[in-house]
């Protein structure tokens, strides 16, 4: 039997917010790899890194760990290896 479960709208919004801030971080990372002396870009990178850390913690409190191997905390029972996985949602 297939199990259809709907996720709250808030989950999709949270993930997309994280995708947006992380995308800025990906772009700044590649840029800084070839522009290591650009101080303004570096400051922006660090500001965004702090914001993404806060957002990650907020999402994890609501929906469980985003990362494995000790980079996220888990409540009981073990929440990491549970659905949904990113390709399923």
């Amino acid at each position: 039997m297939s199990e259809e479960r709907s996720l709250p709208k808030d989950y999709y919004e949270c993930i997309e917010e994280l995708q947006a801030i992380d995308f800025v971080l990906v772009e700044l990372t590649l840029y800084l790899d070839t522009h290591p002396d650009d101080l303004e870009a570096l400051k922006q990178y660090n500001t965004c890194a702090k914001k993404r850390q806060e957002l990650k913690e907020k999402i994890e409190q609501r929906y469980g760990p985003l990362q494995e191997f000790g980079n996220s905390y888990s409540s009981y029972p073990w929440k990491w290896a549970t659905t949904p996985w990113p390709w399923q949602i």
Partner: protein
Amino acid sequence: MWLYEKKLQYPVKVSTCNPKLAKFLIEQYGGADGELAAALRYLNQRYTIPDKVIGLLTDIGTEEFAHLEMIATMVYKLTKDATPEQLKEAGLGAHYANHDKALFYENAAGDPFTTTYIQAKGDPIADLYEDIAAEEKARATYQWIINMSDDPFINDALKFLREREVVHSQRFREAVEILKEEQGKKKYF
């Protein structure tokens, strides 16, 4: 080591069950200019390239795995609930006979992935020029798939991936500039 994060790099939505489109998309999964080839190519080059560009190869190589997961998501969703009959009509009968709905690292013609898609010359300029060419070829593949697809959601994600090829090509071009710079001079900024 690598860390996994439980999210896609970009939201992937699919309008309709469409195994025919999945057959085309698999080109970017296990094809010569696909995301797997890209990730393996860049990460493999890191060991024998000047230190100044190792970071860039690491980061672009890592991002390619996120793109591989986006393509896998599209293929998975496009075929998830298709019947064997639908797969047969989509030209995926031979795939089904061997793999059911399992994803397989193959190109759109069904050729299995091969490491001969990836060169490794050990010459920094030759390797970076290969990377630039790989990005332009992947960009072209995305264009050809967009030209055949009428799924607006898939096209939205494919346009994102196409744009990433443009940005990666830009960074590899900058890496060449960094390596060819006369030593002891600072040309930029």
